[in-house]
């Protein structure tokens, strides 16, 4: 990748960085208010159905970003209007709605939905109409084969290899590194994909995988699974969970008077796990948390404040911005940078600009010129400490005085 970065390329990257950083940092007052016919951006979120807990976070992040963009210069001087529809957490509904957004509502641009299945459904429609689609939550990057699809989250192109190694590096840094582990995962495709990667990488690094267990997504009772974990008594429990499943596993373990020594959770509901009596020392991946050094990035403190305010108003029990909300923020930052950078609403030009330029997002500087339009992976590990998520790994991202805690 690096040998492609000639002088011309460096200039473009610098121009992109300067443009996006400038937009984020400069006060709104110096910019003209956008005017004219609104630029319509269409998208769906799972406002109802089993993904609704996360979608509400993405909706708030979108509202903040549309307001921010309009306070700046909109898109090319025109105000931005977000046409948001509810895909009910169903890929088939997402597919129909994107078709409607493009052909009936005649939106100028689209934004990707949340979660792998709705994204794949929307991507098919985007491809048919040549639309750029930016998404922040497709857990299996190799499935993003459409050339105008871009990730807003720094998963990297092979998270099934990179993710487990970051986790195993963190575990290896403990005074007593785990020698055995249990991999427990939902059969939800993106979780299962990561679990298989975890098992493979752990075995490669000499950590004994005592059990690899899969359960159906939506499993109601974890009692028997908890009994199996307790009997195996691993040094490290890796849970490929979604939403509340982590809480259910930990509660079931507590009912058996057992607490896992070290435990990692893939896609948990961050609030409930942090606040759970069983959540202490739980580990999870992240790309950003509302603490230093992340809050020093341009605009992050302001966006975090706005998020808290809106989430409180929306009656959400957990009002702290996290990697989920940041994903949607990054998505809008990318679209804004690409529209203004390419000076066009034309999808072909926007896609071409994104492939050539870096974008400064809430996650830092992202590039899109790698396999499946992915750039570098920049996974961090966070841990529940005193009912709050704190970044603990790599060490340079941990706030002063915060360190990884092990069994």
């Amino acid at each position: 990748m690096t040998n492609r970065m000639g002088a011309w390329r460096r200039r473009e990257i610098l121009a992109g960085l300067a443009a996006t950083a400038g937009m984020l940092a400069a006060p709104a007052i110096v910019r003209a208010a956008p005017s004219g016919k609104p630029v319509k951006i269409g998208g769906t979120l799972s406002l109802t159905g089993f993904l609704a807990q996360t979608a509400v976070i993405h909706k708030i992040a979108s509202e903040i970003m549309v307001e921010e963009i309009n306070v700046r210069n909109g898109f090319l001087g025109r105000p931005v209007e977000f046409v948001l529809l509810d895909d009910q957490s169903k890929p088939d509904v997402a597919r129909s709605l994107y078709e409607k957004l493009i052909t009936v509502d005649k939106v100028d641009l689209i934004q990707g939905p949340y979660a792998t299945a709705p994204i794949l459904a929307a991507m098919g429609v985007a491809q048919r109409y040549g639309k750029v689609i930016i998404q922040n939550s497709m857990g299996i990057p190799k499935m993003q084969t459409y050339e105008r699809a871009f990730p807003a989250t720094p998963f990297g192109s092979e998270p099934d290899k990179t993710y487990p190694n970051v986790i195993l590096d963190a575990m290896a840094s403990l005074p007593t590194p785990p020698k055995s582990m249990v991999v427990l995962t939902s059969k939800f495709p993106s979780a299962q994909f990561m679990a298989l990667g975890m098992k493979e990488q752990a075995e490669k690094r000499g950590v004994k995988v005592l059990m690899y267990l899969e359960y159906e997504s939506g499993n109601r009772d974890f009692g028997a699974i908890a009994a199996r974990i307790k009997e195996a008594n691993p040094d490290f429990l890796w849970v490929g969970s979604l939403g509340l499943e982590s809480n259910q596993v930990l509660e079931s373990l507590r009912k058996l008077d057992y607490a896992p020594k070290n435990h990692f959770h893939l896609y948990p509901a961050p609030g409930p796990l942090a606040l759970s009596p069983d959540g202490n020392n739980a580990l999870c991946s992240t790309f950003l948390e509302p603490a230093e050094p992340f809050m020093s990035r341009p605009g992050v403190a302001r966006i975090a404040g706005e998020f808290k305010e809106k989430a409180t108003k929306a009656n959400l029990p957990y009002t702290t911005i996290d990697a989920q909300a940041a994903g949607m923020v990054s998505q809008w930052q990318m679209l804004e940078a690409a529209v203004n950078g390419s000076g066009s609403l034309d999808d072909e030009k926007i896609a071409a600009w994104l492939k050539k330029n870096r974008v400064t997002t809430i996650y830092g500087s992202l590039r899109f010129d790698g396999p499946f339009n992915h750039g570098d992976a920049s996974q961090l590990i966070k841990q529940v400490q005193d009912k709050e998520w704190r970044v603990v790994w790599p060490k340079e991202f941990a706030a002063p005085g915060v360190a990884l805690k092990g069994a």
Partner: protein
Amino acid sequence: MPSATLLGQALISGVLAGGMYGLLALGLSLSWGLLRLVNLSHFALAFLAAYLTYELGTNYHVAPWWSAMLIVPAMFAMGLAQHWIFDKFKVNELASLLITFSFAIILEVAIQLYWTADYRRYETHYSTMSFKVGPFYIPVLELILCLVAGVLAWGTWLWLRKTYVGKALRAAAEDADIAAAYGVDHKKLAYLLSGMGAAYAGIAGTFIALIATLAPAQIWTWLGVVFAVVIIGRLGNPLGALFAGMLIGASESIAMAVLSPAWAPVVSFSLLIVILLWDPEWL
């Protein structure tokens, strides 16, 4: 090979989880079996009760047993109101599926509007309590749930078999016209039964609030398995619903302990097919 402790613990866990299946199936089985109404909104009513228990407990510090004293009669009233609609529009078995599905959707949206789609957890100090019997752990709340489900199932079974009202309800379910000829006012009894079904949903909801974390979409979590329980337990048979719930819960749990946990749903629905094909006399 799994150890005896693991198998025993899985069995306990499964039977207790089956108590929830049985409790949820109770109201559904009665309305389907005796009123010929398939009430899909039963699950939404249970979740509405769960959210009300959460609300009263979290914001007003009302203990769940006191909340139940308010919620269960309110649910009974909702059951009556619902039946008034069935009665007014002469809803039949097939139409009831569609109408009650609509009720469930409306309730789900209403719950989401008020409590948002985010997860809600009613934290109590006793929610994960358990006690030890030999090498086995018995979760206290699940055990209480099972006992309550057992008392309700036995009580309802006795009521249907030993009282005039119960016998009249069964007679009307067999042949409403002949029952009416013997002076059975099927319409009034149907209101009573509808109210009871909704009240049972209210009781189940109180336990859901204590055991589970709430989200509006979880209304549908138990749908498939509870339908299987109702069918295996025979329509309108409260004891059958309870035993079928425990049978499915135990078989799912043993499958999780012995095979892969992912096999659990396959086991429960295979059991349903086997029992339907076998059609044993004793069931």
